[in-house]
């Protein structure tokens, strides 16, 4: 039996990767994020996070993004085992 672990992006450690399972937000936020590549099923790797609830940087596909802390907390990720 595989154990999967769900976290939001701000809870992940730098270097961890997983698949996006959902974005907890309105149509606007979901749309903006999906256009930039963050949408369910995509592989996402957390690169770093800034101190004091600063932005989180991630890699999705060929794109690197910086996402504000609050937004990052709404992005749910299933960690890779």
């Amino acid at each position, binding site marked *: 039996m595989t154990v999967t672990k769900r976290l939001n992006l701000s809870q992940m450690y730098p270097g961890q990767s997983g698949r996006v399972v959902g974005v907890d937000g309105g149509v606007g936020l979901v749309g903006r994020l999906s256009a930039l590549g963050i949408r369910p099923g995509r592989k996402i790797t957390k690169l770093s996070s*800034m*101190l004091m609830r*600063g*932005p989180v*940087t991630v890699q999705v596909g060929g*794109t690197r993004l*910086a*996402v504000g802390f609050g*937004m990052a907390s709404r992005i749910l990720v299933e960690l890779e085992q």
Partner: protein
Amino acid sequence: MACHGVKTNVRKRRGGKRDLRKILLMGNPNVGKSVVFSRLTGVRVIASNYPGTTVGYTHGLMKVGEEMAEVIDVPGTYGLEPSCEAEEIALQMLATGDVVINVIDATNLERNLNLTLQLLEKDIPMVVALNMWDDVGHRGIHIDLKRLEELLGVPVIPTVAVSGQGIKELVESIPAARAPRRPPISHDERWAAIGSITEQVQQVTHRHHTWLERLEDASVRPFTGIIIAAVVLVGTFLGIRFIGESLITYVLDPIFEYLWTPVVLFLSNLLGGSGILHDILLGNIVAGEVNYIESFGLLTTGLYVPFAMVLPYIVSFYLVLGLLEDIGYLPRLAVLMDTIMHRLGLHGYAIIPTLLGLGCNVPAILATRILESKRERFIAATLISIAVPCAALQAMVFGLVGQRGIQYVAMVYGTLFVVWVVLGFVLNRVVKGFSPELLIEIPPYRIPPWRTVLQKLWLRVHGFLHEAIPIILGAVLVMNILYAVGFFDVIADFTAPVVTGLLGLPKEAVVALAIGFLRKDVAIGMLAPLALTSGQLVVGSVVLAMFFPCIATFVVLLRELGTTGMLKAAAIMIVVALSVGGLLNLIL
């Protein structure tokens, strides 16, 4: 960020009368559309390695076969769902166009295809420019062009816009543009389609990270990032100062001293050494010595200030800034600064307009359009116009205040920085609304070709020469005439309570404050003949930096913030400038 505030008017085609064919350049932000545009039209544009350079839109003409056509550089969008202003504008423009050139970043096929597939559903012929083709190999990506063309059903041309490669083929492919008019599909279906396309045409081979990529990662990690930022900022400052001072000492000062001084002395003799015309043209020339800073003639100070004091710093500032822009460092600085900038009611991206403001406040305030909310734009524009000194003013501060010792220059900068932080903090509390969170793409580092760096530098320097020189000469002329008719004595007496009482400056300094409205560099120069103490010079420089913006900045403030916003900003400016000036006067 999916939306950039974009203000523009979309021209509707005039009813019935068919004018030039319209070619629309469309694509995601920061894929090189503007560079493709400049290649197609020959119009020189400023492009930078961060999203959102094209605010408003640019259009130009090009030749397709024998026919002339109009090319429009549409603001970058990630999709066509009208979820924000930029995308709405893109959609409206789409309705007026005849052909679309969809510019795609070849290194980022998957994300870019989202817009491409949406465009293919529209009834408009299209070709695809697969830009940044040279980067594909470096990144271990292989793209099957033939297969991509088959799957999309439109011509696909690989291009490298910065070097011009593939542009000729792109133009030749325009007549072959096709509109496959795919049936509209849902979001999820589209992403599935994109997944299947990329799987079929793209192969990514694993390869070791290059040093550039290691640096990319290190510059957005908290610890290494801050060290890198410190190194970059100190290096930037030293670089600008070194280049600027070298140009002054080894090029421009000698030119004035050995070539221009004899001409001035000859003219002075010719005009009899005194008189109104002599004073207006040459100013005070004492005992055959030309003091370019204090004489204040049109042909002495009027030329020396722009060419020998300001121009060297304009050149060095924009050279270094252009390098930082094109390498792609600035968005990383935005990420690092985000936490701090939020305390000032802004998000990290506001650091880009702020840095631009250290060159000139006008493009800086225009660049605040990359911020999403009206509140952020107001705070950013107000902070820039009050506490961010432009290169012209800074050059004069270095030139004049620097003579009294570097500690006085530090006082000017320190005060402005404190004002920037405190005022931002206060505005964040006072101005209603909230500031949205950061969401930006971090571009890869690129080593910019020298040609594009120098071309951009030339555009900006040319802008300075073209716009500033006439105003500087005009300001010196107007001032000399008003002096001659005794106009300033009246004003000086009238404003003496504020200028002398509050700021502790001689009453004649009001002339400098008034001229500051035209040009800040000339205004600082006018403090030179007043025999101020070092403390007074610091007060004068700080007040001039913060007080009313120069007329060009004033006009863009009015345009960007509206009348009410501009009046609010101006009121804040006057209050802050006078209280900080008064406070400094008490301390120093």
